[in-house]
């Protein structure tokens, strides 16, 4: 139940972000869907006890793949779908904790949170990049098989 509520809320939050980023009106629903899928994956992994760094990677990887598929289908740039989708994964809580500990002059804890924040950000970024390379490879294979079919 908790899981379903979280996914519904992440859908609403991502669609609202689509409005803030001024996404085209007809793509708002799909923006929300991308965000909900990504958050669902992330939540599924963390609930299984996986660390948040690989969970963020998996979430952003799937977000980028779905965004690429939507981009092909609607003939729109891919960032329209991916930008709002990755927002829930952004480690806002950890960045906040970094700030709080530094303000309280607890620098050791602050650095610990800062390193974790940058690790999670890096994981999100790597997920996006890996998905891009992955999709390019797949599309190349599809294109090549189509070409060979035509020539044979």
């Amino acid at each position, binding site marked *: 139940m908790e899981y379903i*509520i979280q996914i519904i*809320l992440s859908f609403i939050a991502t669609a609202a972000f689509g409005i803030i980023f001024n996404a085209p009106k007809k793509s708002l629903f799909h923006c929300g869907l991308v965000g909900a899928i990504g958050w669902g994956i992330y939540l599924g992994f963390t609930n299984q006890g996986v660390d948040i760094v690989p969970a963020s990677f998996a979430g952003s990887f799937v977000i980028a793949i779905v965004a690429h598929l939507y981009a092909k289908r609607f003939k729109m740039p891919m960032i329209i779908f991916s930008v709002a989708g990755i927002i829930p994964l952004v480690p806002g809580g950890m960045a906040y904790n970094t700030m709080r500990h530094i*303000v309280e002059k607890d620098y050791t804890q602050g650095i610990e949170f800062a390193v974790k924040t940058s690790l999670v950000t890096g994981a999100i970024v790597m997920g996006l990049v890996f998905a891009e390379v992955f999709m390019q490879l797949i599309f190349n294979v599809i294109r090549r098989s189509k070409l060979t079919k035509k020539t044979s």
Partner: protein
Amino acid sequence: MALKGTKEEELAISCFLLAGRLLVQAGAETYRAEDTMMRMAQSQNYMEAQSFVTPTGIIFSAGNEKPTRIAQIPSRTTDLEKIANVNSISRSLTAHDITVIEAYEKLQIVEKTNFFFPVWVQILASAIASACFLILFQGVWTDMPAAFVAGGVGFIVFIAIHSLTRVKFFGEFTGALFVGIIAFLAVEWGFGTQLDKIIIGSVMPLVPGLPIANAVRDLMAGHFVSGVAKGVEAFLTASAIGAGVALVLAF
């Protein structure tokens, strides 16, 4: 000797430059702007065209013996609908569905139109997003009204200060500051319980999602100048938000 092109050449170059400028201004990746301009140019038989795009300006040359021009880009926003529109115009131009003149006219219309949602819709969206993020970050349901108000007011302050001072980082700083103050007051007066969660949720609408995503894609495409510039933009925004929140926490 200054090179001067024919009338058609000048018009075509204006058209390509406008497309590139609109893309960068709306927050598209640098490599997309370059790619779009090159495709448009090649479809119109400018095979030697070259473009150099940075977040603050574009240099475009139609080839040897042909004019070269510069477009300055003073400000950038996030406007995904504009990117989609320019993209579809460039697609129909490269497919030869429309001529350069038609494309130029269409681009000029896109430049003038304001595609943004009304401000109150944006504020409402950021308030709703804040309330949702509170729950996503394991907050309690009773804190939702506080996050709703803090997120909405934070965004209003951000828009107001940004349009007043034209300094984006100052707007983000003040927005985060107001989020912190409202969250603090809400907890003080008994409208909320977890100060941390309310602040984190309400600060999310200010988070620089687009620069982070774009910086990486540009770096991967080999555009190191733009990638680093956008990475710094994202870092500065994050620092501004952090400083705003820290100011409240320091008391």
